[in-house]
């Protein structure tokens, strides 16, 4: 086959793919609906979607790793013309890794815990000996050089490596046989921004030099938009938009794309404007007729409820766009609507800020130190988690504690809640030193300080109802009894937006969505009528479109109830939205403090600058791309 021809020929073609989860006990759930797309050699394709959108199932389908309960009901998956669902098992095995390889989510679990890194990498050669022939000039050592990992780590076990290193090992492993396509499934989720940045830039360099195609599956909008040439947006099992990244960012796109992008902004900007999409994606058990997004879409018309939603095929200077939305015209009419009509998509986030230094001080932290000592044989090592930290929390205002993982921010939260004792220094709340509290007094103190956890899936007892969870602090701390408890539970549920209360009171946590659960966690914290709330990454486990909503709830409740909040996060955008003051923590020390705007827009410390520069910014990095958004839409119309 001539070289020129093979460039145009897609390496992966997905045609009208449908996948259902089948179960004996319930109706089949269709998780992938009529998905079709192509990936060309060397192309970097992003697949963006919220949890439950079917993006991981699609990734697994391409790798042919579907679980036994998932069934391909129709459609084809062609890799260079061969249908991966029907080729013989041995052919598929040989094709794996030498043609299509993968990098899984950066959890602990993707490397075998009882084998050394070297053994796991050499496994690949053993399995493909002779099969991939000339492609095998890469050695294990050379692949580690590509990701800048010292060769000595070859003889380490996975648990001896940090999360970022494991992910780089996984990246090195994926290129061992020089595959033509690599599927990345949430490769940087769970890593902090600085590490994420280094892995992604490494991936980009590798991709440019080795010319493999990438399917990059993620829920992280900023990363996908910055990295990908083309993005596919999934919603409720469908690909609703498949466009060059520059076009998707142009402001004329599927309303869902617009909505997702609206929840994203650069925290360094002088003015930020965040919009979110109210509501939740439909349950896959009962996807509505017509456009699945119509219920949440501000632009929905009667046409959107018709069974057949047309897919507009539009050519733009950056490439080809497919958009499944009635707003985008048919062949006869104008293909692109005016950008202004999208202004009304989503809902403006409504947050208030307190003036810096306003409100009385409810908590004063002075010269706080925490040292953990560990003994290894006769060697005694000390780990200084928190060094000389001091700050104040004020009534009705939000203080953000920002830093990478391991910077000591969670330790400070734990000391503040009285779970851990400081090594030295004082935390004074209402004139009492928290470190000196014992039993009864500590218990009283805990009613004043409440914690909101990161993972709403683990923070609630799965066996007790929402009403019970919220009633515990009422009974334990506020000594309410009988009907008072019930009334108060209802009132608090209303406060966090779970209305009507009667619908939520008796539900169990597994019957709620992630965002609803986090609201219950917030309600439980509020129930004790605390003076201080410590929120430890309260939105990092939530989907993008729900984050803004939860932030709004948190913001409003602290202001209206006069609560002082310590907002612990690594996410500077959310800190920008909710906090009045920012403390930047680096290796246990506070390196920069000030009002939110001051810290983020007139940054002084290098570490804060590093954090800020690690945030992906799709608009920034695409400024040099010739097809500027405005131009692309007008020329397409012409």
């Amino acid at each position, binding site marked *: 086959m001539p070289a020129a021809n093979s460039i145009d020929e897609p390496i992966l073609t997905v045609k009208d793919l449908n996948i259902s989860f089948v179960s004996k006990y319930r109706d089949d759930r269709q998780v992938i609906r009529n998905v079709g797309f192509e990936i060309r050699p060397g192309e970097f394709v992003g697949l963006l979607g919220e949890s439950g959108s079917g993006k991981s199932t699609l990734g697994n389908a391409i*790798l042919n790793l579907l679980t036994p309960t998932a069934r391909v009901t129709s459609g084809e998956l062609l890799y260079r013309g061969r249908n991966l669902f029907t080729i013989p098992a041995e052919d598929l095995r040989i*094709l794996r*890794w030498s043609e299509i390889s*993968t990098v*899984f989510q950066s*959890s602990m679990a993707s*490397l075998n815990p*009882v084998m050394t890194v070297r053994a796991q990498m050499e496994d*690949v050669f053993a*399995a493909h000996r002779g099969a991939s022939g000339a492609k095998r000039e890469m050695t294990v050592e050379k692949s580690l050089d590509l990701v800048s990992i010292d060769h000595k780590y070859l003889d380490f076990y996975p648990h001896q490596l940090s999360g970022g290193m494991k992910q780089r090992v996984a990246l090195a492993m994926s290129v061992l046989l020089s595959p033509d396509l690599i599927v990345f499934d949430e490769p940087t989720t769970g890593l902090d921004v600085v590490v994420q940045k280094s892995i992604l830039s490494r991936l980009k360099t590798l991709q440019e030099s080795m010319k493999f195609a990438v399917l990059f599956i993620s829920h992280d909008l900023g990363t996908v938009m910055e990295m990908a040439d083309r993005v596919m947006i999934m919603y409720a099992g469908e690909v609703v938009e498949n466009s060059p990244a520059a076009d998707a960012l142009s402001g004329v796109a599927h309303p869902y794309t617009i909505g997702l992008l609206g929840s994203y902004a650069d925290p360094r900007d002088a003015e930020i404007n965040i919009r979110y999409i109210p509501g939740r994606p439909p349950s896959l058990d009962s996807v509505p007729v017509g456009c699945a997004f119509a219920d949440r879409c501000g632009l929905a018309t009667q046409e959107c409820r018709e069974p057949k939603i047309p897919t507009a095929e539009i050519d733009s200077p950056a490439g080809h766009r497919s958009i499944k939305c009635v707003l985008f015209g048919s062949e006869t009419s104008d293909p692109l609507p005016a950008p202004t009509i999208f202004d009304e998509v989503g809902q403006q986030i409504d947050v208030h800020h307190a003036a810096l230094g306003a409100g009385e001080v409810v908590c004063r932290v002075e010269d706080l130190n925490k040292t953990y000592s560990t003994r290894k044989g006769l060697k005694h090592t000390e780990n200084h988690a928190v060094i000389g930290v001091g700050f104040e929390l004020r009534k009705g205002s939000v203080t953000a504690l920002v830093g990478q993982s391991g910077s000591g921010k969670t330790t400070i939260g734990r000391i503040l809640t009285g779970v851990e004792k400081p090594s030295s220094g004082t935390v004074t709340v209402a004139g009492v030193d928290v470190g000196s509290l014992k039993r009864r007094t500590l218990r009283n103190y805990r009613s004043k300080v409440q914690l909101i956890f990161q993972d709403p899936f683990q923070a609630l007892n799965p066996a007790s109802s929402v009403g019970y969870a919220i009633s515990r602090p009422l009974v334990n701390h506020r000594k309410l009894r009988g009907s008072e408890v019930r009334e108060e539970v209802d009132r608090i549920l209303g406060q966090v937006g779970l209305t009507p209360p009667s619908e939520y009171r008796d539900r169990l946590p597994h019957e709620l969505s992630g965002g609803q659960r986090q609201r219950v966690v917030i309600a439980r914290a509020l129930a004790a009528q605390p003076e201080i709330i410590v929120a430890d990454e309260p939105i990092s486990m939530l989907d993008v479109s729900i984050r803004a909503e939860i932030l709004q709830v948190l913001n409003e409740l602290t202001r209206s109830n006069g609560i002082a909040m310590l907002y612990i996060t690594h996410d500077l955008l959310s800190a920008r939205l909710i906090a009045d003051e920012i403390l930047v923590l680096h290796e246990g020390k506070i390196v920069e403090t000030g009002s939110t705007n001051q810290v983020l827009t007139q940054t002084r410390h290098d570490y804060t600058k590093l954090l800020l520069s690690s945030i992906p910014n799709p608009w920034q990095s695409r400024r040099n791309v010739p097809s500027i958004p405005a131009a692309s839409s007008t020329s397409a119309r012409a």
Partner: protein
Amino acid sequence: MLYFLRKTGLFVLTLWAAVTLNFLIPRLQPGDPAEAIVQKLAGQAQQVDPEQIRAIRLMLGVPDTSLWNQYWDYLNALVHGNFGLSYGYFPYSVTHMIAEALPYTLTLVGVTQIIAFVAGTGLGAWAAWRRNTKIDSFISLGSTFLSTLPFFWIALMLIYVLANTLHWFPEGGAYSGEIVPAFSSGFVADLAYHAVLPALALLITGSIGWILGMRNNMVQSLGSDYTRLAVAKGLKERRVAWTYAARIALLPNFTGFAISLGGVFGGTLIVEQIFSYPGMGKLMYDAIGNRDFPLLQAIFLITTVAVLLANFLADVLVGVLDPRVRRQSS
């Protein structure tokens, strides 16, 4: 390395504690062995003459020194492998009695434990690999069903069908009286012939735990990311099944196995009772009835030491097999 040193230290310490407790506990128990012997000789209804009791005491050498001296004598005797004379089987020594019973138990229970573990783990792994197929249903449902049956019932059914009805195997005993117990091929064959039924009973019940445990562990490790990645890497099926899925699923089962091997020394009372097999379980049972303190003490000690030793070996082996364990405790 530190991991193994630490485990050795811990082993020595628990061993000492076990030995000491083994010395103390019988001495705190009520009842007088001399009285029991005289009573046995005289018959239940007879009055016992205090002089007789004194005579028996002197004969057995019941100690009258301080506890501390006794302890030292006990430790000294232990080091020399001298457990004293059996009260119940006087004048045989305890060592002699144990040497009579131990080989039967060790071969019967030891061999069946190992076979049960290997077979059970293998079946469990197979069921997990073919999960949600007929093979899996057959293995897991079958073993779950068997596990609900009481052990003695299974043993009795085996005797009824294979011995009483079909007359394929003897009903009980370790050997037939016709051949002189010696290391001859005829005697060994006779032993094996007698061991088939109790071994079968032990195998059926012994392997169920391993089957179910292994299947559940392996279903979990098969669903894990590293196994899925191994499949995506295009590794051969056999390699994925053994090196990725089974290797890790085996670890928890392995610890259980090593510990159960230690328990072998105590014998299995029910098997030995049902098949009138002259093993450690029966010996211990009789020793309890006879208030045979020296024998009991020795049996307890051997069992305890064996369990401790097995635990220690399990720790060491798991340390070798699982690198994560090594680091966590060092």
